[in-house]
């Protein structure tokens, strides 16, 4: 492979950084054949597991074009199934492994392909990302429901904990030996499969052109099913191998996927040999850090953060994405484009405020039993909705995927704590927003170079990096010191973070935020954001600077999230690093997208659903709902393969014709009915006379209604 100067620079910088880091944190433990040897054994074992997991990612991605964010979660799930069979029901290991790896996992993969993945073909990337991330949460929720966290589980290594053989004075356990052998075997088999077998060549061809591949006699449907079966099996192998090393913990095993992402990114998501290389570098690097380096307090997670850092570096060192000239797909029928007027947004905001004021005041009868915790729930809902609002301009309008809204929110909360934590002065909120904006702009730098999937990966690495290296610093959040954030002082009021006054304040803030965002959407900034979303190439040829535009939208998004985070800090009163993890941020992103990421109203939908899941779970108390807060958003996101529009779009379509001033919505509805009569048009003129009205209907249907002068008959028909 040819490396560009940027690649060399990245490699040189990484190596230099690694050396400096090692020198600064050297533990002074003895370096001998024994210590280095045992580091290598463990490192290569880890690397082997990453390699197996990452190769599953690569196989599925190169064959189906779908990047499977759920790869780690699938491995986690199959590891739990294996544990259930092997240790809970005491089946013999070969049968349990054979059943999971060769039967259940492939079957699961095929089912996923049939039910979900096939429908993703040709859909926008954002949808593909959300559906596989939804799947990831779905698997996590499923595992947490089936295997409750109330008891310890142990997956024993193969051939017991002790035993093994001596190699150069280092003990290699049979489990580790097996792991390494499995990885080598799979590497050889995959290479043979993809490059030497007919089906493998077809698998690689199908992603380039489905239609051409099917012309050669291969069946793309079967091939994509096979790829998912294989990917799922590889996930299972990785999961079963790593569970004894890391423990059977849902989150831990799921996040192996981030390590696999880094390895796969080294291979540019395509090359298996480079992926294996990346996995080895990672495994050995991590073990080197554990064996020979000591990191001071806040950086104690540095070894776990290594994959994240590698992912970030690799993604940034990738060659700059060319501006794609792709052509604009045309929609089905012409319609007047309506941009929500500010008056509508303001009206909706007022309605929301009225509802919240009367609800929290106990005026609505059947919910008053929730007051107390109910009001606190409302506070959580509004804060979630405000953080979700941050993604509306960024992802909804400018098309920039961001899985790190909670990292921004956490940053904002920390800033509020530092600036106005003692006093709770309201100007601290604005300061928090302002201080978070540059962090967003920082995130925009990769966004300038990256598009779509790589940006999503970079944002994930960003969120994980913040989680492991930033919030853990005692100078950032000092969990031990018991720093408390005071209640909010605003215009002479003192608003307790869990009280009704705070809830009403938040509602007003949210409503103002919606109106402000709609105003932004209608401004030149909004237009520019939508322009770079639709065609970066065309936008650039009009003189639009992509760097500047992305920096602005990321900055604004981060500011909103930081503001929301500060509000969250006031509600929580104390901060701790576990409040702002990557995994907690994912449901926020998913629920917003389920609502319809381009609409501020979707943020309210998302906020309502966030607490709805918790309320349902608590009120019903059924054990199979015990992980509903992750299972729910996950399944809703997966269900988007059926309805890609977003929930609030449908709600809007259903309700807006009822509003007296929405003549246009009624007209749209009528047009919709007209186009659903499409079938009837087929024999028109043969069995019935072809009248002027039919011409008008056809014109409307074809979307040329506004190009031709209205005929008298069209005018005489009037409204409905």
């Amino acid at each position, binding site marked *: 492979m040819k490396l560009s100067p940027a690649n060399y620079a990245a490699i040189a910088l990484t190596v230099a950084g690694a050396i400096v880091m090692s020198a600064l944190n050297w533990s002074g433990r003895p370096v001998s054949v024994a210590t280095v040897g045992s580091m290598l054994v463990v490192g290569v074992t880890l690397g082997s597991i990453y390699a197996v997991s990452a190769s599953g990612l690569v196989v599925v991605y190169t064959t189906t074009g779908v990047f499977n964010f759920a790869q780690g979660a699938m491995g986690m799930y199959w590891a739990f199934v294996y544990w259930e069979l092997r240790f809970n029901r005491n089946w013999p290991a070969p049968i349990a492994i054979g059943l999971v790896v060769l039967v259940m996992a492939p079957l699961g993969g095929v089912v996923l392909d049939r039910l979900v993945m096939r429908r993703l073909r040709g859909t926008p990337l954002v949808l593909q990302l959300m559906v596989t991330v939804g799947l990831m949460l779905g698997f996590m929720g499923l595992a947490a429901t089936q295997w409750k966290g109330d008891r310890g589980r142990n997956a024993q290594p193969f051939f017991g904990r002790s035993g093994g053989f001596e190699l150069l004075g280092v003990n290699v356990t049979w489990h580790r030996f097996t792991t390494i052998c499995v990885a080598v075997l799979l590497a050889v088999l995959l290479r043979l499969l993809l490059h030497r077998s007919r089906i493998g060549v077809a698998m690689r061809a199908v992603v380039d052109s489905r239609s051409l591949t099917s012309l050669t006699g291969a069946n793309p449907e079967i091939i994509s099913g096979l790829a998912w079966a294989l990917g799922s099996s590889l996930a299972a192998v990785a999961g079963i191998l790593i569970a004894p090393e890391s423990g059977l913990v849902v989150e831990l095993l799921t996040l192996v996927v981030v390590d696999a992402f880094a390895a796969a990114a080294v291979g540019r998501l395509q090359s298996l040999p480079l992926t294996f290389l990346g996995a080895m570098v990672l495994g050995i690097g991590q073990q080197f850090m554990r064996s020979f380096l000591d990191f001071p307090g806040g950086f104690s997670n540095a070894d776990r953060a290594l994959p994240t850092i590698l992912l970030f570096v690799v993604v940034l060192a990738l060659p700059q994405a060319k501006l794609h*000239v792709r052509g*604009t797909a045309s929609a089905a029928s012409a319609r007047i484009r309506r941009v929500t007027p500010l008056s509508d947004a303001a009206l909706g905001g007022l309605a929301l405020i009225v509802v919240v004021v009367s609800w929290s005041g106990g005026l609505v009868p059947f919910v008053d039993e929730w007051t107390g915790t109910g009001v606190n729930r409302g506070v959580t809902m509004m804060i979630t909705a405000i953080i979700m609002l941050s993604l509306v301009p960024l992802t909804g309008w400018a098309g920039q995927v961001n899985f790190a809204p909670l990292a921004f929110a956490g940053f904002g909360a920390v800033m509020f704590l530092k600036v106005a934590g003692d006093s709770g002065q309201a100007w601290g909120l604005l300061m928090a927003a302002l201080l978070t904006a540059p962090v967003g702009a920082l995130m925009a730098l990769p966004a300038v170079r990256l598009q779509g999937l790589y940006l999503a990966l970079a944002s994930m690495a960003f969120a994980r990096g913040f989680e492991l290296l930033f919030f853990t610093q005692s100078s950032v959040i000092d969990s031990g010191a018991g720093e408390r954030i005071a209640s909010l002082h605003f215009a002479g009021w003192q608003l307790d973070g869990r009280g009704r006054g705070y809830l009403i304040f938040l509602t007003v803030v949210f409503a103002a935020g919606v109106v402000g965002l709609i105003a932004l959407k209608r401004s030149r900034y909004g237009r520019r954001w939508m322009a770079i979303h639709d065609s970066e190439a065309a936008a650039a040829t009009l003189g639009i600077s992509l760097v500047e535009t992305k920096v602005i939208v990321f900055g604004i998004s981060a500011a909103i999230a930081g503001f929301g985070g500060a509000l969250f800090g006031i509600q929580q009163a104390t901060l701790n690093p576990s409040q702002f993890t990557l995994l907690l941020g994912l449901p926020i992103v998913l629920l917003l997208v389920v609502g319809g990421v381009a609409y501020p109203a979707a943020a309210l939908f998302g906020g309502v659903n966030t607490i709805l899941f918790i309320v349902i779970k608590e009120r019903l108390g059924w054990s199979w709902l015990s992980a509903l807060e992750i299972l729910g958003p996950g399944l809703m996101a997966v269900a988007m393969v059926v309805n890609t529009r977003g929930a609030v779009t449908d709600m809007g379509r259903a309700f807006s014709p009822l509003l007296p001033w929405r003549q246009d919505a009624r007209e749209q509805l009528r047009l919709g009915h007209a186009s659903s009569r499409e079938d009837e048009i087929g024999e028109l003129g043969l069995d019935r006379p072809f009248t002027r009205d039919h011409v008008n209907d056809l014109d409307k249907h074809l979307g040329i209604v506004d190009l031709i002068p209205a005929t008298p008959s069209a005018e005489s028909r009037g409204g409905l």
Partner: protein
Amino acid sequence: MALLEATGVTVRFGGLTALDDAGISVEAGQVTGMIGPNGAGKTTFFNVMTGLQDTTAGRVFLDGRDITRLSVHRRARRGIARTFQRIEVFGQLSVLDNVLVAAEMRRRWDRSGPPPHEEARACLERVGIAEIADLSVAALPTGSARLVELARTLATRPRVLLLDEPSSGLNGRETQAMADLLRDLTEDGLAVLLVEHDMSFVMGLCHRINVLSFGEMIASGTPTEVRSDPSVQSAYLGSDHGAVQ
């Protein structure tokens, strides 16, 4: 001196040479045509001039100033505008907003003229689609969408207009209107460079024509000269396409 000039442009994709030492010069107040068989490298050439494609070798000059290293948006700000072969409109926006984006952006480097809204309306009127201003652009037929793209480029007040197959998707009447419009624009001093397959359109409109074949500029001259050039005839007739379309 030519307004827009490119010399020795070479672009290689791995082993494939898409453009080989190709050059062109585009004069203000003229319509310059670029023709060539499919795959000759016409769109790649456009991408080189607008900065969407890096070159292996070669230089691009605007007004005698070297702009080879300038980014896409900086070239646009100096007056290079283009349309795309496969239409690149902003599908989320209305027809008017598509043009408005450009008009608003242009005020960054040139604050003269009417406010953006008026300017955008004027551009729509100039290409004759003012009556569909409020329609969603994603749903337009190809011909109208092409006109939106054209109106959008006009809103940047370009000095050079690069049009990639402006007449494709247009009917006979619309094609005629397009030709008239381009003539009008060049009379205002604009330089137009267009890639086109419709030979009668090219021959009737262009002052000069350049012929690109397999990445090389094989001929250049007036329509009459080009038509009778033997290498042009062999480039077209030698292929499987048969005759000049």
